[in-house]
């Protein structure tokens, strides 16, 4: 069920009405669990069994870990077995074909022959998200920072909470489980805030991201036939699309959670305002970067080790972060470039001793240029396409030199790309919405007006959204 469709609208209205009409949390939790499974089953009911199995594994693992003596090898053993099992499930669905295909390619490259082919495996929606949450729960219980959940219903609600089930944000167990233990009261201000976030996310996704998708998809599907300028436009379009798509979805998810009385942490904080890559990762997909930091980077040794080892940890974390998005060399490349660039950023910080040497605008430009380049392998269909796009950029750059030397005017047909469609929403969002100073200075206080604006924004979204349904990019992960 996609948030921008009519079935979801009906589902949400029914769930909200029923949820708040139920007398207490005793009834609300099982109802919410049912709603979560219904939501997930709408896509493919067969995978609800997988979701149930993940909940059961996490529940039993949590209980057994807690029962074992703190610091005992048994406790560690339970944690390791549960995490291996969960990663095994993720690996089977997500990486089997990638490794089989790559191995096959390697063997055939060396002159050997293999009889196997890739398997027909359907990737369950959002599997990476709920498995990472399950790991978060198990590891937190193992570390003793959280008491194992007694109620399988509550744990089920946490792992399958429909607003963020299929595309995040990844919620850490200590953030959400305590909320389930608290008595829930209807808070009107919180409810309206949820509606506001939902409306904002709806505009991001249904209007800005989907319009950009219509421009970007054809360019990336036939990169070899595009001019360097169009390819640049397509990449810029994707730079905007992925932000509006994912930030929009996250806002809608947070908004729906608010409508149900729950708090989810922010997942985006105007990442295209970042002036360094470290800053970017504090603003982009915050829930994933926090997860990777807490459950991968720190266990690897983090920065409490030698400098070379620290850099290795960063690169390994980013490579695995890339692989989390999908089994492809492109995602590995994306993670790898980010990893190396983050190391450079840390090294630069050390050299400059954290004093800004570069003007802010130059730092911003450099950061965004790296982010922009990294989105190319992220979006391109194959590694060959990625290389082709970079090659075309190179050619375009040489032509640009020609253009400047010979003063050739740009033909209007080459400028036909809808640049404003990309630039205007990004500019207004980053420059105005993203500026704390402007928001405080221009803030307008009116409860009534806010009600009206939410309602009108939803209608504007409907009128301006392209007909047809465009999936969220992060559904595939």
């Amino acid at each position, binding site marked *: 069920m996609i948030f921008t469709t009519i079935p979801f609208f009906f589902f949400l209205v029914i769930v909200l009405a029923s949820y708040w009409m139920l007398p207490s949390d005793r009834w609300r939790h099982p109802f919410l669990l049912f709603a979560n499974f219904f939501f997930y089953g709408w896509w493919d009911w067969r995978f609800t069994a997988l979701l149930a199995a993940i909940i059961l594994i996490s529940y039993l693992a949590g209980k057994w870990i807690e029962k074992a003596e703190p610091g005992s090898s048994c406790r560690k053993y339970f944690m390791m077995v549960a995490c291996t099992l969960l990663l095994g499930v993720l690996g089977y669905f997500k990486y089997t074909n990638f490794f089989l295909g790559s191995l096959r390619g390697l063997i055939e490259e060396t002159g050997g022959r293999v009889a196997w082919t890739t398997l027909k495996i359907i990737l369950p929606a959002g599997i990476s998200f709920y498995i990472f949450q399950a790991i978060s729960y198990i590891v937190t219980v193992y570390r003793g920072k959280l008491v194992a959940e007694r109620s399988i219903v509550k744990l089920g609600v946490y792992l399958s909470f429909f607003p963020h089930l299929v595309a995040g944000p990844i919620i850490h167990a200590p953030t959400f489980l305590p909320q389930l233990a608290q008595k829930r009261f209807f808070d009107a201000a919180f409810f309206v805030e949820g509606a506001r976030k939902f409306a904002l996310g709806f505009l991001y996704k249904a209007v800005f991201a989907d319009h950009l998708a219509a421009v970007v998809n054809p360019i990336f599907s036939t990169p070899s036939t595009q001019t360097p300028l169009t390819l640049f436009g397509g990449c810029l379009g994707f730079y905007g699309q992925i932000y509006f798509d994912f930030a929009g979805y996250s806002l809608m998810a947070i908004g729906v959670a608010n409508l149900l009385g729950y708090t989810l942490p922010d997942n985006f904080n105007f990442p295209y305002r970042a002036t360094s890559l470290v800053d970017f990762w504090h603003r982009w997909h915050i829930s994933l970067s926090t997860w990777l930091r807490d459950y991968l980077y720190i266990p690897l040794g983090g920065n409490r080790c030698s400098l070379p080892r620290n850099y290795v940890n960063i690169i390994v974390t980013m490579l695995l972060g890339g692989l989390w998005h999908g089994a492809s060399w492109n995602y590995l490349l994306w993670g790898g470039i980010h990893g190396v660039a983050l190391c450079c950023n840390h090294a630069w910080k050390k050299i400059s001793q954290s004093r800004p040497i570069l003007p802010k605008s130059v730092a911003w430009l450099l950061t965004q240029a790296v982010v922009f380049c990294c989105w190319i392998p992220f979006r391109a269909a194959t590694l060959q396409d990625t290389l082709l796009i970079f090659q075309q950029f190179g050619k375009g750059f040489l032509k640009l030199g020609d253009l400047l030397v010979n003063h050739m005017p740009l033909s209007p047909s080459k400028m036909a790309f809808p640049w404003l469609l990309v630039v205007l929403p990004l500019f207004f969002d980053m420059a105005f919405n993203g500026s704390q100073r402007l928001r405080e200075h221009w803030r307008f206080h009116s409860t009534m007006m806010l009600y009206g604006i939410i309602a009108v924004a939803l*209608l504007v979204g409907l009128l301006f959204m392209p*007909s047809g349904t465009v999936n969220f990019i992060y559904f595939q992960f």
Partner: protein
Amino acid sequence: MLILIPIIAMLALEFVVPGKKKVCARFFLLVLGGVIFVFLLLRSFLPASLVDPEGEAVLRVQSQVQYLLKHKGWQEHPVIILVGSSATQYGVNGRALEQLLIQEGLPVTVLQFSLSGANHFERLFMLRLFLEEIGAEHREELKKAPTLLLSEVFDAYDESPLYLFKKEAYTRRAITWFEPTQAWASYQAWRASGRDKEISYWTLWEHVLLNRFAVGSFSSLELPKYNKQIEPFFPLTGTKKTFHYNEVEKEFREAGPSPLFQQLYPGWKSYYQALFQEMGGVVTSLGFYALPTLEPQRRAYQDAFAASLPAHTTMLGPASREVMNSLLDEKNWFDGVHPQGQGAVLVTRWLAQEIFEKWSDLIETRWEL
């Protein structure tokens, strides 16, 4: 620059915050419901030509309304309304048909409502829109003119009343014609056709909602151009890549007498009833026409339709064997159903001849259910 509207909405959502007045969820829901109600109310008064001014059906209707109203003294002669799908859009030149009939001594005005892939209910939508657009006064004049409605017979649309809907679903075109009044009639026809497994009930009702909320009306992000027009006749040139004329001609020549359909596809009956309800008050006579086709199965259906013609209606065609033989030339066909180049000229002439020959039947038979 319409993109600025959602941008303003986006900024407003960030910059407007609750004031001194305490937030009240009930009041918020009331405002939300009120805004939606007012929107739906306004929407119900807006004709499709304002909501989707650049819709394919709308553009065709606009051109015909303009044509009729520019035609001085049209009230003094009969008006012929042709309504059909791609076979008519590519095969019949309404303007040429009108001239041919005038030359034969029949002063008429021909209006053509043809759209490729338009099923019965999209055609009904075009007709309804036409009646809305010309206004009450001209509707009365149409009645007096008199007005003859000629509806194309094409088996695929009778067999599946929502033909091509699955492919077109969620497009602006499908959303535009799926008005609530259409929904019920198409729902009944679709159930009666026995092909209700192909599309879910939910999809149909979803389209009504999409239509009422005018979803995607500004999705082009450009200011709509009102009163833009599109001519309903599109001459085709060349031959379809997948069409092998020689094989089709051989099959056509070898086909014996048409295998008779035991009964017509039930889908057309609900269309016929809906057509009468919509147009019965304005149209005095109803006729059907079956355009020449090289496909034996389609021809067989045309024969069956002609054999079980509804009472108080007249049938034009199917074309005789001699007519078909005169059309047997690769240059005349784009594929087995759609003529191209000279083919469309010949088909138009044939239809003019049919109308002329059966004129007295057409004009004297009063349409009744």
